[in-house]
């Protein structure tokens, strides 16, 4: 009974903090622009393929496979965690055991996966600490980013240690005939210890350690780059479904041009339905779509995007990962102030220029390698082009070479200074044999 009350108090505290975090995020999302979604069937299929099937992580096959094992392991172990919550709430033991054979399969694989994840995490930690992985460095990878990674990895390591400890001492302390579920790894470990009811306090210890770590981890994640654990699957579900080559249309401009092209509407009196003037493109966090912000929260800074970026490879400042990290950082900085002081609040800083430099924005070739590479379908190029839209249409601040092509396209319909009258010169004296 005491255990039950203690558990309920812990759970309520966890859910309380978590709700506060979600509410705070909800307020930040409300500041952003719309991004329509639909086509849920297709999205569901994409989620199964890319998130559950981990297809894009396999673009780096070796380390990708290790990640996939950790992910699939998490899914199985999650069922065990749900059971622990039910057990804790109602003061019972192994509440899902009625599943019979399925229970045995789930818990046997959970037990094996705990060991696999444990080994994988040790591998990840070692790799991060001792191997010089290029994509783990870069100007955006501060001491804090690395610390964030080490903390998350350590917690996962402890989660697995406590899970194996819990299972082992369960097998040790319970009468063999009464054991519910199968625990291949833990049964082996139990064999090294012996058995007897006197070990049940160790079981209790690891049980609490495991569940409290889960509660702590759940509340820490939203403030860490490992928010990824919660958001990556939904982020894939909410992916852009268009081909990578497509850019979103700016309907406000279409309206403007159509009225210019049609003399009747061009000089007509305003109908009163004209939308209030909006800012073209993205300058600061309130100009991004909620999906851009979702992308930035889902990013776990793996750096696959940056490692394939042609600009970054050749030493330019642009790093697609940094674009996502800067957006998240800037929303944290400005968002709460906008919530508090209203949408006219300004701190005389902006995402573009103060976080992401103009130099970075112009270095992009829009080759889409970053978006192609991202294991959770984050889309960087559209956001980069949105910032270009701001620079060009609000500030007329394109690099000189681009201003010339704009002028040429306007005047003679080609990026180069050739007359449209010469468009057929290439057909002169064209012969075919035969």
């Amino acid at each position, binding site marked *: 009974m005491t255990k039950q009350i203690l558990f309920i108090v812990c759970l309520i505290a966890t859910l309380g903090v978590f709700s506060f975090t979600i509410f705070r995020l909800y307020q930040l999302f409300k500041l952003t622009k719309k991004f329509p979604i639909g086509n849920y069937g297709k999205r569901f299929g994409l989620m199964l393929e890319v998130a559950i099937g981990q297809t894009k992580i396999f673009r780096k096959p070796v380390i990708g496979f290790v990640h996939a094992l950790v992910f699939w392991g998490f899914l199985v172990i999650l069922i065990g965690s749900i059971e622990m919550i039910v057990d804790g709430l109602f003061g019972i033991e192994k509440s899902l055991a009625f599943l019979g054979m399925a229970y045995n399969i789930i818990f046997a694989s959970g037990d094996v996966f705990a060991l696999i994840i444990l080994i994988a995490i040790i591998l990840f930690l070692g790799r991060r600490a001792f191997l010089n992985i290029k994509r783990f460095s870069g100007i955006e990878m501060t001491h804090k980013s690395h610390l964030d990674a080490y903390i998350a990895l350590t917690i996962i390591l402890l989660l697995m240690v406590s899970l194996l400890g819990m299972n082992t001492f369960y097998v040790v302390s319970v009468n063999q005939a009464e054991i519910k579920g199968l625990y291949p790894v833990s049964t082996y470990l139990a064999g090294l210890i012996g058995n007897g009811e006197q070990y049940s306090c160790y079981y209790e210890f690891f049980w609490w350690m495991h569940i409290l770590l889960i509660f702590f981890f759940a509340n820490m994640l939203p403030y860490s780059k490992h928010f990824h654990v919660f958001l990556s699957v939904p982020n894939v579900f909410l992916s852009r479904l268009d*081909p*990578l*080559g*497509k*850019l979103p*249309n*700016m309907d406000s*401009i*279409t309206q*403007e*041009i*159509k009225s210019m092209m049609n003399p009747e509407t061009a000089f007509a009196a305003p109908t009163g339905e004209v939308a209030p003037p909006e800012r*073209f493109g993205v300058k600061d966090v309130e100009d991004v779509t909620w999906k851009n912000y979702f992308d930035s929260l889902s990013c776990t800074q793996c750096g696959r995007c940056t490692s*394939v970026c*042609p*600009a970054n*490879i*050749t*030493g*330019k*400042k642009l790093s697609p990962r940094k674009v996502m990290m800067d957006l998240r950082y800037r929303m944290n900085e400005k968002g709460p102030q906008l919530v508090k002081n209203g949408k006219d609040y300004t701190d005389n800083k902006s995402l573009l220029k103060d976080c992401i430099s103009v130099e970075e924005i112009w*270095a992009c*070739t*829009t*080759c*889409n*390698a970053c978006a*192609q590479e991202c294991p959770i379908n984050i889309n960087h190029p559209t956001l980069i*082009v949105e910032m*270009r*839209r701001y*620079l*060009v*249409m609000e500030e007329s601040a*394109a*690099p*000189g*070479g*681009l201003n*010339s*092509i*704009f002028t040429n*396209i*306007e005047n003679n*319909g*080609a*990026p*180069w200074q*050739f007359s*449209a*009258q010469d*468009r*057929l010169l*290439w*057909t002169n004296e*064209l*012969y*075919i*044999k*035969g």
Partner: protein
Amino acid sequence: MENTKKIDVPVMAEVFAKGERPEYLFWVGCAGAFDDRYKKVARAFTKILTHFSTSYAVLGTEETCTGDPARRAGNEMLYQMQALTNIETFKNYEVKKILTICPHCFNIFKNDYPDLGGNYEVIHYTQFLQDLVKSGKLKMDSKVFNDKKITFHDPCYLGRANSEYDAPRDVLNAIPSTKVEMHRNKSFALCCGAGGGQMFKEAEPGTKEIFIERTEEAIETGANIIATSCPFCMTMVTDGLKYKNKEEEIFNLDIAELVATSLDL
């Protein structure tokens, strides 16, 4: 000239006036019309169209930039002006199918114009050629490239942007020659460095030019021919070969040129 026939490229306004409705609009693109090197590609592809008696016409002086470089550089206003003008022209000529040689033109017609009301069947010339290979109409038995090693550089706007990796390869595979892939190919391919308006501006400061990085990768394969299928890629790779002083041994040719040469057109 002996055994040669002059090609009179059909122009839409004239063809249309005669009451004919060509099956394809052949969109030449600014590079095909104005870039001296890429004019050769436009000519090569025109020969192929003529060889297969394709029903097509070009817009000629009525063609104008698709707006792609403006759009990727952030000038949405200019892009939409160009796009709406083009859509109007297409409407006048009842255009249903568009053949492009430039993947950037291909992409913008296919993916971006529909939002402005322009819906067409858009075909990249490599896809057009792929169909001819598949149907058995395009057979290249010529031995011209027999002892040549060809590597193909994927253009981003055909590859990643539109997931078309097979069409150019199927066409190249129909040409008797050795094919070799670069280390980064298909969806992993490295950009030539010209997209997103980069073609028309100075690169930002860095340690290397992107086109040099990519050309080096192509050279590493030991190929004698670097095949491209995009005017921007061609400018970049050709420059890269000059920079590496390899332009005498390694040739940068467009797939349309390889096919036209194989067919001895």
